[in-house]
């Protein structure tokens, strides 16, 4: 069977991770600056007050004046989602993440491990963590499993057999189907409010009115899954990262670039890399005021050349919307090969560089971790002497 684990309003829960008390109050994810003013995910209290995800901001505030708007935190959400996926993988589930908050796995492999489907789903929910209020569903088809997880209560699982799938789906609301908001409204205007009602319509008529997306939704409503494929477990990403915490917020691009150089040097020196060049990297920053920022860079050709990596990542720092308190460089993917064309003649200074590294290694061995640091100038023009430069420990 295919199992689905769902965390409703995952992006909002992730943004409220540090302020769990807000979860009990009417709150909604604020729209991103420059985008259409529509609210994102909402808390249960906001939903009870009539606020729905995708509602216009003015309408939502009119409906619930005490509505708290929560700033989106994509980096925290991504990190939290990765942690959840890893906990599931550590418990033996070969997961296929669909989107943050929705993950599938094939239950066949783990049923034997945990003594049945129900204990396996229970174990998966425990791996996600009760704080996220996850729900699980299992069925022969993906959509039925997702729908089952969608209607299960927090911390509970629901198993739908193939014979019962059609009857189970029939009374459920249309919103469970992967359709655009306008399409739901169009169907509702036609008096179609449940999945069963849609399944009862002639397929050709639905396709004519709503196009291929509507035809697919109609098939799903009927318990079929066009182009259904097996669960394809992801390849766990290699989490190799280095973080630099600044004593105060840094907004100067030159300083941030210097920080990036330090992070690159440290990351490239990590033994776990085993000589493999990075293929995909991500720059992450915690901004002043608590928001986060993240940019991913995929290299056309994997390389471990610090200068080329600097050139690829450096310009991204100019996109930082606010001063940063923390800067992190992550290797999202390493190339499988280590083979790069070697130089016939060692570069000038290579021997000296090697001797210097060896000396530093000896110093570290003598005085311990943190004994060697690099001076990074951050604000040489500052009138406050201690704000001019930072000491960054070098343990590579």
């Amino acid at each position, binding site marked *: 069977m295919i199992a689905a684990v769902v965390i409703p309003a995952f992006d909002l829960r992730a943004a409220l991770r540090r302020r769990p008390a807000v979860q009990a109050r009417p709150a909604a994810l604020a729209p991103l600056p420059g985008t259409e003013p529509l609210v994102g995910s909402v808390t249960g209290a906001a939903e009870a007050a009539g606020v729905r995800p995708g509602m216009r901001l003015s309408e939502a505030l009119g409906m619930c004046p005490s509505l708290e708007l929560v700033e989106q935190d994509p980096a925290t959400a991504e990190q939290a989602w990765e942690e959840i996926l*890893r906990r599931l993988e550590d418990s033996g589930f070969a997961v296929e993440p669909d989107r943050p908050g929705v993950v599938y796995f094939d239950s066949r492999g783990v049923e034997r491990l945990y003594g049945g489907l129900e204990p396996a789903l229970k174990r998966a929910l425990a791996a996600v963590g009760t704080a996220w209020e996850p729900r699980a569903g299992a069925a022969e088809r993906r959509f039925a499993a997702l729908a089952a997880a969608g209607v299960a209560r927090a911390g509970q699982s629901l198993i739908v057999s193939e014979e019962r799938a059609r009857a189970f789906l029939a009374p459920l609301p249309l919103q469970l189907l992967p359709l655009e908001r306008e399409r739901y409204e169009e169907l509702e205007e036609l008096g179609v409010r449940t999945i069963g009602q849609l399944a009862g319509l002639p397929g050709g008529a639905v396709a004519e009115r709503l196009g291929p997306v509507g035809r697919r939704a109609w098939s799903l409503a009927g318990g079929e899954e066009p182009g259904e494929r097996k669960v394809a477990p992801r390849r*766990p990403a*290699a*989490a*190799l*990262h*280095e*973080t*630099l*915490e*600044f*004593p105060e917020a840094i907004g100067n691009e030159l300083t941030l670039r210097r920080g990036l150089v*330090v992070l690159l040097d*440290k990351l490239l020196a*990590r033994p*776990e890399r085993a000589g493999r060049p990075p293929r995909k990297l991500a720059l992450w920053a915690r901004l002043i005021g608590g928001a986060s920022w993240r940019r991913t860079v995929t290299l056309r050709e994997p390389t471990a050349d610090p200068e080329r990596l600097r050139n690829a990542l450096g310009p991204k720092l100019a996109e930082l919307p606010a001063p940063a308190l923390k800067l992190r460089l992550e290797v999202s993917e390493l190339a499988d090969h280590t083979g790069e064309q070697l130089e016939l003649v060692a570069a000038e200074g290579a021997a000296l560089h090697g001797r210097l590294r060896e000396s530093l290694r000896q110093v570290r061995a003598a005085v311990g971790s943190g004994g060697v640091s690099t*001076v*990074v100038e951050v604000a040489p023009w500052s*009138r*406050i*002497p*201690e*704000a*001019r*430069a*930072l*000491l*960054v*420990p*070098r*343990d590579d």
Partner: protein
Amino acid sequence: MRFATSRARARPLNAPRPALVEAHAEGTPQRVNRQGVALVREEWRVVDRWWTDVPVHRRYFDLVLESGENAVVYHDADAGAWFTQRA
């Protein structure tokens, strides 16, 4: 594949250290770390970050002590304490 992660805690270079200073009534240092002050070479004020939660309000003195040693000390108006620092 799982890798360990690491985090570097950067710290400020040239962070101020507390100093034992006896001052004249008008605020200029008389003795620094139990040594008499021979000469006040320069004096300046640094007022910065007044828009933040940690404003900076310092009165710096570049001194020559009786031992011939150079020293820079400042009085932090907010903390009400003396510190030494290379300026």
